[in-house]
């Protein structure tokens, strides 16, 4: 049976590369590329194009070059949103890293009861953002929320959890953590299962405590996964939108107005599509840049 591709195999690195014949690659790739081109690449490129114009409801009003970008960087609202987003990310990423890691370590194991615990921590990733907002809203509603009922029962003063500008952002990071940590835990569990038990046993014989095990065995071996999770969390945090829109709409006195929300407002409320697109481009550059940097700096030598 002759091989249509007539390959000459060369072993390079870990993969085998076959030269030249493009029929199969093309055939396998084309369906995806068509969908990608039409529904992802085209709208994105068009948005990029729009960012160089003053673009209104009915199309371009005039070509403005880099004006949108320059204008944004000299505008208080944008700079503030930028800062808020950075702040949020700085809150969220370490928080989720630590919480996910600790929980994953605690949840790792074969005991059936651990399975039940795991399910509890996974649940929030299954529900959609609107349901999450309803569930969380029900807890923290100042008037009838469960949390304030508990506080009332404990004779503590009632709180309006999302009403304080200083705390609203932190509160949203907690909600985002609750809604997304499950993913990180799943990935971490997969990694933890691959750490051979012998290492822990050997350490135990040497008298190592659980904490030392964690510090000297678990964490170093999980490095690539921790890096992955950090990048994923970073990307998520820099783009956070749904939670903010549904919980605070930009928050008390603009304290939770993050970049994605600003994009939404510029694009869908003011219909300044050129500026909205510019915000999107800036965000992409920041996100991609930071991700790339992280991989560079923290990858295994």
């Amino acid at each position, binding site marked *: 049976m002759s091989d249509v591709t007539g390959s000459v195999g060369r072993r390079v690195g870990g993969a085998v590369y076959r030269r030249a014949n493009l029929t199969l690659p093309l055939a396998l790739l084309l369906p995806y590329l068509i969908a990608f081109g039409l529904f992802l690449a085209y709208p994105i490129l068009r948005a990029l194009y729009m960012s160089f114009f003053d673009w209104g409801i009915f199309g371009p009003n005039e070509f403005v070059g880099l004006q949108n970008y320059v204008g944004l960087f000299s505008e208080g609202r944008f700079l503030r949103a930028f800062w808020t987003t950075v702040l949020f990310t700085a809150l969220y990423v370490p928080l989720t890293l630590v919480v996910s890691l600790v929980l994953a370590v605690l949840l790792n194991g074969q005991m059936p009861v651990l399975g039940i615990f795991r399910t509890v921590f996974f649940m929030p990733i299954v529900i959609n953002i609107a349901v999450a907002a309803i569930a969380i809203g029900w807890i923290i509603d100042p008037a009838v929320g469960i949390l304030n009922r508990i506080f009332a029962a404990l004779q503590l003063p009632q709180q309006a959890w999302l009403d304080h500008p200083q705390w609203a952002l932190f509160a949203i990071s907690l909600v985002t953590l609750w809604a997304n940590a499950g993913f990180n835990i799943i990935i971490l569990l997969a990694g933890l299962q691959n750490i051979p038990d012998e290492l822990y046993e050997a350490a135990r014989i040497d008298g190592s405590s659980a904490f030392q095990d964690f510090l000297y065995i678990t964490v170093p071996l999980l490095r690539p996964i921790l890096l992955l999770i950090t990048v994923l969390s970073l990307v998520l945090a820099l783009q956070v939108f749904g939670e903010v829109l549904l919980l605070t709409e930009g928050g008390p006195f603009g304290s939770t107005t993050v970049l994605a929300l600003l994009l939404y407002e510029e694009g869908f409320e003011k219909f300044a599509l050129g500026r909205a697109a510019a915000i999107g481009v800036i965000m992409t550059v920041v996100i*991609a840049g930071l991700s790339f940097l992280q991989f560079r700096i923290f990858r295994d030598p």
Partner: protein
Amino acid sequence: MRRNQTGRYITLTVAASIWALPLIAMVVFSLAPNSEILKMSLWPSEFTFTNYIEVVTTEIRGVSIPDSLINSAIILAVQVTGILLLDVPAAYVFARLRFPGREILFWSILVTMMMPGLIDLVSLYDLMARIGLIDTLPGIFLPGLPRPIGIFLLRQFFRQLPVELEDAAKLDGATDFQIFTRIMVPLAVPAITTLAIITSLYSWNNFLWPLIASNTPSSMPVPIAMAYLQSGTSPAQNYSVMLAAAVVTSLPMIIVFLIGQRWIVRGIAPASGIK
């Protein structure tokens, strides 16, 4: 010699209680009449199923939860099938079949994951309007097909499969295509299952695009129908029904997830760089 596990289980119990509180509270109070919402008690004094009955039977201008469940199911079926059909072959190409520009293409696809999802919504709407697909089911499910996560996940998976498998197959005279269909795909089942589950979650819960792209009940998936039925009703009147609706609309995915839970870990493992 087992270390003392009490500390561990105490921590887990406390953490899990806090973690589960929002959802449990939601379920508990969805089973109580709305009057319980306005009282300040920690636990309802009476329970009822009326909220759920209302969720299932309410219909406003043709919008109803049961109808939207059908829409969501169709969208999900098409998207999962479509994404698997598109992504598996494409990921294999990126992992194993070389061609000029492959890496650039791959990274270009990947970089779209770094973009805020909102950036292209208006252009997408414009495109779909010109094709005439606004307010149709295809208009809802088509844009979700090229999501890069599948490519990423499956490529990682394919890359860490031993090369020897392919070499052996070549020696037996198999074509590239046969290698793909007879060896690679079956081996990729764990990752494919993971992708199917992740895609299901995305499909069912997708909110922003369907919000903009659907206007009438013919194309409304579950989250949009829920939002529609909620607006214009005073929360003071039927918060408990809203809670019940939230539970009902989340149930299918909870079930899917519970069933598919162990597959996800197996599928994700290779993607995260573990051998």
